[in-house]
Every structure is written in C-alpha cells, then in structure tokens.
C-alpha cells in the first residue's frame, strides 16, 4: 500500500445505472496520472468521489493506505472538477482569499505566489466574470492549490481551450508536479496532450477501469510496426520472409514495407538486411499514439 491514492471496488449508482462500477485505481506518490475515457465513461464521477463531492454506493477510497471515512480526507487535496466555481463579482485575489481564510492560509505572500503560479498577477481589480475561459480555468487551479495539495485533482482542465492555453496549463502542471511535489490526477479526452506529460494512465470505459499502465509500459507495448523504405523493396521482403521467417508484412506503395511482428527484434532485422547488402533508405520503429492504443483496448475512438 505505497499508493498516495487507491480505490477498491468503488461504485456509484444513479437509479439503476452504474456511473462507476468496481473501480480499482492506484496512484503512487509523485505521478501525473492521466484518466482516459470517452464522454460518459465515468471520469468525473470517479473524481467527484475522491473529492468527497458525492458519496459512493459501495467500495472504498484509500489515502496513503488509510481508508477514508465519512468523506473526511486525511491528506491535503485540491480539486477542479468540471467547470470552475468562482464568485463572479470578485477579483482573482478576493476569490482566493475566501478559501485561504477558511484554511487559515491567508498570508499576502502566499496569495501573491498562487497568482504568479497561474499567471494572474496582473488582473488587479478585474472581476472573475470578465475573465476569459482560460483565465477562469487557471484561477480555479489556483484555488485548488491554496492548501499546497498533496493530491491535485483536475477534471478536463483543458477542455475548450486554444492550443496556447493548453500548452500554458501543461507547463504549469509539470512545474507544480516537480516543484510543489503534488501528485496529479488529470482526466481528459485529448489524449495526445495527456501523452506529453502523464507518467501513468488509467483507461475507463462504461464505468469500469479497464487497465492501468505506466508511460514505460505504453512505450514498450505499443510499438506497432517497423517501417522500411528501400528502392529494392521486393528483395527486402523476400529476404525477410525466408531469412528471418517473417510473414506479417505489408507493402505500402512501391518503396515501403511495414513489418508487423517481432518488432522488438528491430536491431537484428536491421543488421540482417545490412549483412545481406540490401540498400535501405529508411528504417524505424513506429509507435502507436496513445489514441491508437486506447482504440485498440476499447474498440472505438475517445471522442
């Protein structure tokens, strides 16, 4: 039980329908955990349960191996679940001050620091209702950071944002993870974006956690094929067929061959072609994107 957060058979039922069913997730300290799933898969439900916004139908949540009772967290948690909850008529600072007071952390230096972290220092008296979506999102993240959380929960924080805004948030989260030491759980259906910085993943479908894996596992498992380009592509294919006993190969156009098996032996294959004196202009291992990997597991797209 070295996980900062884990769940055991966690379920939430609305009427007859399970929004989440027997979910087991494991999040070690220090990770950036990407929660992946289509709309309606149960991501938000899982995060709301962890944040004590709703009560579980059954199952348990463990924080540092300790069972959470009556929704009272024993570690510092900060969360942004779904849309930001802000006082629209208050400035960024005033919004932060209310929560800071409630936590006994209303020091001007601390609030300044939070505003700097999310790059809202220069908003002054401007009211939250006049903020852009990205600014509101960042203010909500600052609110989640008020108590220096050990666990930061973010539910689709980059939804509906422009590429620059997305990049800003990504860089900010990596910094929060490294410098403040916060473990982060982030859900998204923009998988390419998650793939850039998540260190661990959980795939959730129809309320069930299908699979958890690390970035390394993803990199090892999702090598999909070797792409070979050569002007002598027919000879290359024939040589691999009889010399290496490969059969799962596919020609693409006049100069390209995709080898779809024994991908982990790519060095041997390369050497073999070299030894045979075959000219190869390009040789590389293609990785599936997280998106393709997800599709392979769930049989559909994430969107």
């Amino acid at each position, binding site marked *: 039980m070295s996980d900062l957060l884990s769940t055991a058979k966690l379920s939430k039922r609305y009427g007859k329908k399970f929004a989440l069913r027997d979910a087991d997730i494991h999040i070690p300290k220090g990770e950036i955990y990407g929660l992946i799933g289509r709309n309606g898969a149960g991501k938000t439900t899982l995060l*709301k349960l962890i*944040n*004590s*916004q*709703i*009560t579980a139908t059954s199952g348990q949540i463990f924080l540092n191996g300790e069972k959470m009772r*009556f*929704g*009272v*967290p*024993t570690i*510092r*948690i*900060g*969360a942004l*679940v*779904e*849309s*930001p*909850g*802000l*006082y*629209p008529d208050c400035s960024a600072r005033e*919004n932060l*001050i*209310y*929560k800071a*007071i*409630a*936590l*006994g952390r209303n020091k001007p230096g601390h609030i300044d620091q939070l505003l700097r972290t999310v790059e809202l220092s220069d908003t002054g008296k401007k009211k939250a209702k006049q903020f852009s979506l990205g600014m509101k999102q960042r203010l*909500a993240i600052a*609110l*989640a950071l008020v*108590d220096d*959380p050990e666990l930061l929960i973010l539910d689709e924080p980059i939804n509906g944002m422009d590429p620059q805004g997305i990049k800003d948030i990504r860089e900010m989260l990596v910094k929060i993870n490294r410098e403040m030491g916060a473990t982060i759980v982030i859900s998204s259906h923009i998988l390419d974006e998650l793939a850039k910085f998540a260190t661990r993943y959980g795939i959730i479908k129809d309320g069930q956690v299908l699979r958890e894996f690390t970035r390394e596992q993803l990199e090892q498992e999702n090598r999909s094929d070797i792409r070979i380009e050569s002007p002598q592509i027919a000879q290359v294919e024939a040589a691999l067929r009889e010399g290496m006993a490969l059969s799962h190969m596919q020609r693409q156009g006049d100069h390209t061959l995709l080898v779809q098996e024994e991908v982990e032996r790519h060095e041997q294959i390369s050497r073999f072609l070299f030894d045979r004196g075959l000219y190869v202009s390009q040789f590389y291992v293609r990785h599936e994107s997280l998106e393709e990997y997800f599709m392979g597991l769930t049989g559909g797209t994430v969107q």
Partner: protein
Amino acid sequence: MMQYLKMDIRRMLRTRGLYIGILVSLFFLGIFSVASYLVTGIASEIMPAGSGALPPTELLVQARKMMNVNYFLSFFFSMPGFRLLHMLLALFAAGFLSKEHQTGYLKNMFSIPRMREKWLVSKMITLLLASLLFYAVFLLACVITVMLFGNAVHINWSDIGPFLGTQLTVDMALFALIMLAVTVIQSRTAAVVSALMLSFNMQGLLYLLIDQIGFLPFKLRDYGMMNLAAQMSLPETLTSILTQGDPVTASQVLPLSLGWFAVALVFIWLALRRVDYKG
C-alpha cells in the same frame, strides 16, 4: 471552525442583501413614522377607549406622545400579515445561504476536512450575528424616530428583551428551514421561494385548511410559529389593541421556534451526509 467562520463573516459583511435589507427596513420605518405622525386614523386606534370625544387634531397630538420604541418595534415585527423584518432577514439569509451553491464556489471547499459540518455551524453563527446587527440598527433607528417625535425615549428591557429574543429565535428557525431547502434542493430559487413562503406565513393557510377539515382535536393554527410570533405584543402598541384575547407570550412561541430550529438542524445534518453535491 473559527477559520471557516471568519470566511463566512467576511462574506456576510460583503453581501449586498444585508445592507439592502437594512435600508428597506429603515425606509419603511420612515414611511410608517410619517404616517403615524400625520394620519388621524392611526391615532384613534391607539388612544385608550373613552378619548374618542377629543377633536381629531387634539387626538393626534395626544397620540404622538404615546409613540415610543415599543410602538415601532411591534409594528415591524408582529403586525399580523405584515412581518417585514422577518421577511427581509429571510430573504437575505436565502441569498447568503445559496450563494456558494449558485456560483459553484462550494466545490472548492469539499476537500476541507469536515467541511459539511463547518458549513452548517458557521453559516448559522454568521446568520445569528447578521440578525443581531440588523436588530441593533433597527432599534437605534426606532430610538432616533422617537426622538424626532419629540418624545422622551423610554426603553423597557423587561418588555423588549423577551420580545426581541423570541423574534430572534423565530428568525433562527426560519434560517434553519431555508438552509434545509438549500441543502436538499441546492438552488437559489429554492432558497428564495422557501424564504418568501415561510416569512409570509403561507403555511398558515395550510393549517387553516387542516383546521377546517377538523380531524385534529385542537386548532393547528394556534400552534403556528409565525402566527403566534405575530401576536406577541408589547404594551402601548397597535398590536396590543388589535389582538383579541390574551396576548401571546414568549413562553408560547419559544417552544415552537426552538423546536422548528432543532428539527430543521437534525434534517440538515442527515441530508448533508447523504445528498450529493449537484454542481
């Protein structure tokens, strides 16, 4: 807990509804005092029996001398059908209690350990403080009005102490019932509607209906909190003249207001642990 309370007090002091409520109450106090000063009809109501022989102008002069703090307090708290102060406070409470749900700010707070209990206790204490502030301002305004009438101010604490204290418990019961609506339904509309219905005593209609059907061995309306609170009277006031029979006392109202307060708190407590946050 103290920290959470500090946050709520700051919020309360920055809620416009509180100041609007106070201003509206002062506005009507102004209107009522001018009316009391000028309108002979009111004078003839409050003059003791037998003084009807006086000419109208003389009646007015005599009546003005009788207008004191009790007269104004009682009008605004307890004229049957006219419970302005309860209504203003209930509306303020509705806005204050539902603000965090309406804006979604509440969702930032769930990670605070024992946040639900803190929310309940701290909101109630804050509303108590807001009511005290409201009462103090209004009492002060009554004193000033009496002075403007040119009368000597006499405040009899043994009269208005129990009177205001009881009305305060009625307000606390209203707040708790509104809070129950906010806890369960989680919307501003629910808060405002419950505040208006309760403070206008719409439940009184329901009691009346039940009494008409008559399957209870007693009259339910005799145990309506708002009903009784409005019949509490102070000496030398319109209410004391208009209400027939024995005046209602604090000992009749207190069990009801404290009872409703306690019942509402128990249900809020039960609901807080079960109801999912909808935001």
